[in-house]
């Protein structure tokens, strides 16, 4: 069996934002790998650090206000060491990025053609004719009707779904082996969401690229992903293939999340919610189990002093041992 090669390897990545003189880590020691032909979903609540992680991989954090440590290994490069000039060769060429808000992520004053062409100009030596041909090809690929007319249009003239297709076309322009999609369907309505997810799956099958899909929507994960990493408070708390995660979730946070999905409720039955909120960066306890304050009915001795991510079954990693003692409130273990 051939060894599956890792496209991207993130080792113990920490990303800290500056508050006054102190840095607080929004991503706090994340390690993960992305393989070819794989869709890796990163799930978590708002503020768990998933978008910060994506921005860190793209190297788009403001260096004056952020501190990044750890490694992001791509080919034989550590991206955290790259200077701007070299990073610009990677961005768009080796890693494409799809953003959440399809209206905001397009420049309102530039035509669709110019915005897609811009992705090609810096990475190819195409002449105008070749660029035009490639733009048309991309628009066809992402399912834009009448591409000849649409490419002369401005973003405000298109619908939300069309704009997101354009954003995807931009990310695909140079056939990057890695695509990071940061909540690509959050701003879209449900029917368009399904279309965009289909499109991303098709593209993945066509190009064989690895996709990191960042989302808070477990429905999207179930439909699209191959592997899932669940993030809480800057750390990965559970990582598993998608079917394992949905069938046999271990970590209390994963179980709570899955339990919060609205299903057909009996009359009088309450929708399950997770207690409390994600603490803000400055107030996040850095020691002990970070999820502990939100499951107060679990006895103290169930939590580890320093929970580590451990492999409990092949390809299934869970942080700490609290999962062994976890039960939902009101239930008996």
């Amino acid at each position, binding site marked *: 069996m051939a060894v599956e090669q890792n496209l991207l390897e993130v080792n113990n990545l920490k990303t800290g934002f500056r508050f006054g003189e102190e840095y607080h880590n929004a991503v706090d020691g994340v390690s993960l790998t992305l393989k070819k032909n794989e869709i890796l979903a990163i799930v978590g609540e708002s503020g768990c650090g998933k978008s910060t992680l994506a921005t860190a991989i793209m190297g788009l954090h403001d260096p004056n206000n952020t501190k990044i440590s750890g490694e992001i290994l791509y080919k034989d490069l550590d991206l955290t060491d790259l200077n701007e*000039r070299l990073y610009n060769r990677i961005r768009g060429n080796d890693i494409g*990025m799809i953003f*959440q808000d399809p209206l905001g992520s397009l420049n*309102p*004053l*530039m035509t669709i053609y110019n915005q897609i062409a*811009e992705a090609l100009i*810096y990475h190819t030596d195409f002449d105008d004719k070749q660029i035009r041909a490639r733009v048309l090809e991309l628009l066809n690929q992402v399912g834009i009707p009448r591409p000849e007319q649409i490419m002369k249009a*401005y973003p405000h003239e298109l619908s939300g779904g069309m704009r997101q297709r354009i954003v995807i076309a931009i990310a695909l322009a140079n056939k990057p082996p890695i695509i990071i999609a940061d909540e690509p369907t959050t701003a879209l309505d449900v029917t368009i969401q399904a279309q965009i997810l289909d499109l991303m799956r098709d593209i993945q099958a066509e190009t064989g690229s690895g996709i990191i899909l960042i989302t808070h929507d477990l429905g999207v994960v179930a439909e699209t992903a191959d592997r899932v990493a669940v993030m809480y408070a800057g750390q990965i708390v559970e990582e598993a293939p998608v079917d394992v995660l949905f069938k046999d979730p271990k970590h209390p946070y994963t179980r709570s999340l899955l339990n919060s999905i609205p299903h057909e409720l009996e009359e009088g039955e309450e929708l399950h919610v997770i207690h409390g909120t994600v603490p803000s960066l400055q107030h996040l306890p850095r020691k002990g189990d970070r999820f502990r304050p939100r499951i107060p009915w679990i006895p103290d001795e169930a939590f580890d002093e320093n929970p580590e991510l451990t492999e409990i079954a092949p390809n299934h990693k869970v942080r700490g041992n609290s999962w062994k003692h976890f039960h939902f409130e009101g239930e008996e273990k």
Partner: protein
Amino acid sequence: MWKTIFRRLLLMIPQIIILSILIFIIAEFMPGDPFTGMIDPNIDPAQLDAMRERFGLNDPLPVKYIRWVGNALQGDFGRSFNYKTSVVNVIGDRLGNTVRLSLLSTVLTYMIGLPLGILSGRYNDSILDKSVIIYNFVSFAVPTFVLALLMVYIFGFNLGWFPSRGSIDVSAVTFWERTWSRMYHLILPSITTAVLGTVSIIQYLRTEIIDAKVSDYVKTARSKGVPINKVYTKHIFRNASLPIASGFGYTIVNLLTGSIFIEQIFSYSGMGKLFLDSINTRDYSVIFVLVLLYGILGLIGTLLSDLILMAVDPRIRID
């Protein structure tokens, strides 16, 4: 687009008529007339009244208004009682001076404002940015006449580097002498105007750039691998300059209106000083035409601003 322009121009006609009637009524309420205080106080009131009668000053308002409009349509905007010549000549003499001064002032204002706004927006919270903000507060707070008097005192009076009054030297005869003398007289007033006129340019540019820097489309551009300098020139500056572009129409028409303070303090014979002098001498025919002109220029400025914004922002279409 031409249809829009034509319609907007047509719409201006009733606006101008209403404006002229309003000004006419207000002028009627003003105390005194051209003969007040201009003529020997010992003159027989009956004779004065005869003069008023002769010039039509005692006629009812609608009659005066219609007479004025009739003349104006034939290019006769009345005579200035103060300058003893036609209003058109009086204004024509000063328009050139004002345009020269405003043009240089505007160019200088943008030459100072644009780079400072861009730099402080791009490197916000740097020492440079903080100095620009201090300059902005100071220039916003200092009244024009204070700086103008300081400039006159320091560079005109004490150092004697630049002329501090007038628009041209009487000894200048040849074309080149006259041109040079005019330029020389422009330096102090235009610098004064420019130094104090940059507030809105800097403030708009700075905040717009700071906003645009963290916008999603800039993130998209950077994730395409566009070098940061290109991101600034192609994405950030264009978007950040929209509010300035929208004010540019007014800037253009302001070239003609001049500045009352600056022209008065530097004794610069332009439209602003003419306006003030006419008010002081109750030269109503001139005041009337000037106010009407400013009103019309305001209307044109609005139209120009809309057209400019339409040209730079594809989201805006007026029809």
